[in-house]
């Protein structure tokens, strides 16, 4: 069996600097309370994996971090600034530092992979020189092993390739924080492992901090510095992958049954 890629010992170790501070947030949609009382801190250079069943509010949590949703109560601070208090310009500035990889990859259907990757470069970094754009796009695609797909449309790509292209598009502006929304969902085990290892490579290469939402235990095992388990809108356990695997709590242990 192929050996799982080990976390690089040379990689920047998580520091104590908190880059994301989620403080007692709650969020309801209509009468349904999705988030009840969520607290989470992400340290610089750290990969935090959030595990939980579907529909528990995992994605809602990270959408609050980039201001796509606003919590009903509590606060979300990124680099010390409260996201809910930010104006449009400040939000735009924040989003240059926080990358978001959507579950589906969210590539723009009408554009080729090249145009998809150029999109944030021309709008966020305001790069207009075609030579510079080409260089950055090629470099980003090379990093995710997709150089051959540069002129393809998203509809011509497989699920795994779309995720890779989505990752390249997000990473091309070098965000300091990455939010991954179920990066391996719907992929075969081999591709899932490749994506998980790619996440680890990105952390190593660009020294990013990341929150990874998943229910793929293999992905969690490969990528997590710390694991948080979510159930019914609140966090029920926190620790390293190995610590939680040995937890006394039956519900916590049940997440690890398949892999143990």
């Amino acid at each position, binding site marked *: 069996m192929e050996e799982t890629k080990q976390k690089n010992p040379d990689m920047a170790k998580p520091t104590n600097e908190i880059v994301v501070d989620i403080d007692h947030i709650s969020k309801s949609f209509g009468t349904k309370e999705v988030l009840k009382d969520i607290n989470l801190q992400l340290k610089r250079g750290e990969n935090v994996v959030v595990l939980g069943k579907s529909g528990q509010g995992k994605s809602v949590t990270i959408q609050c971090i*980039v201001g796509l949703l606003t919590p009903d109560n509590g606060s979300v601070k990124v680099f010390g600034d409260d996201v809910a208090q930010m104006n449009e310009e400040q939000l735009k500035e924040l989003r*240059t530092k926080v990358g978001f990889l*959507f579950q589906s990859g*969210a590539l*723009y259907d009408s554009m080729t992979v090249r145009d998809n990757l150029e999109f944030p470069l021309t709008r966020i970094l305001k790069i207009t020189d075609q030579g510079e754009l080409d260089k950055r796009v090629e470099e980003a695609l090379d990093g995710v092993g997709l150089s051959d797909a540069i002129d393809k449309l998203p509809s011509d790509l497989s699920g795994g390739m779309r995720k890779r292209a989505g990752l390249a598009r997000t990473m091309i502006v070098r965000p300091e924080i990455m939010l991954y929304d179920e990066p391996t969902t719907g992929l075969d085990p081999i591709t899932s492992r490749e994506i998980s290892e790619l996440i680890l490579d990105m952390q190593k290469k660009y020294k990013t901090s990341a929150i990874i939402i998943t229910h793929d235990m293999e992905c969690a095992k490969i990528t997590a510095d710390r694991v948080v388990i979510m159930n019914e809108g609140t966090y029920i356990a926190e620790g390293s992958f190995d610590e939680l695997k040995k937890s006394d709590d039956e519900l916590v242990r049940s997440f690890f049954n398949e892999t143990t």
Partner: protein
Amino acid sequence: MAEQAITGYKKWLESIGEQGVFFKSFFRNIFRGGFEWSEFVRQCYEIGYRSMMLVGITSFIMGLVLILQLRPSMLQMGAESMLPKTLAVSFIREIGPVIIAIICAGKVASGIGAELGSMKVTEQIDAMEVSGANPLQYLVVTRIIATSLMIPLLTIIGDAIGLFGGFLALNFTDDISFSLYFHKCISSLEFIDLFPALVKTIFFGFAIGFVGCYKGYNSNKGTESVGIAANSAVVTASLWIFVIDAVAVQITSLLFYR
């Protein structure tokens, strides 16, 4: 029953409010810097050029059929020579703009509704927002301005093709030259036939773009909602076209026919 009616009424009012907010956001984003020219040109191509064949064929058939339908009655009244004038005035004032707008509502509004709806479902709009771009400016402003410009242009082309269809129909039965036919058509038209008709097509185009964008942009997150967005975009845009037409006719009558 009464409760259902109240809920329906509340939802309708909410929808009106949301459309007002969307309308305001559209105008605010037009005047912001960073207009998306390349996307605007692409939309003009998609909306204008790609609809030309459909508009052309429909207009041609309409012109042809109208002459064939009108001819027996006009012949009975001995007013056969009035056929080019009748067709020109009715086609350019009313039939051309409305029929072409309705066709475009079916093709363009549903296309925009489905495209933006599917972008919403697949999180592409969210992705655009978190990547620092302004999705309203990129997706909505470009499409609404493109429809507002392209529908009048399509109408002008469609009107010309419709009149040509009428010429062919008339030429089958009567010996009329191309130059005489078009001379009769053009000489029968006045400023008040052309200008209000052209102005109302700008509003038709705006309604088509606005409704398509609003329905798509605000669709729910589910594959079913893409179909609903496309469908309701066509229905609402078509309805708006008739409402705008009725208002435009009233305004034209007040301004020019008193």
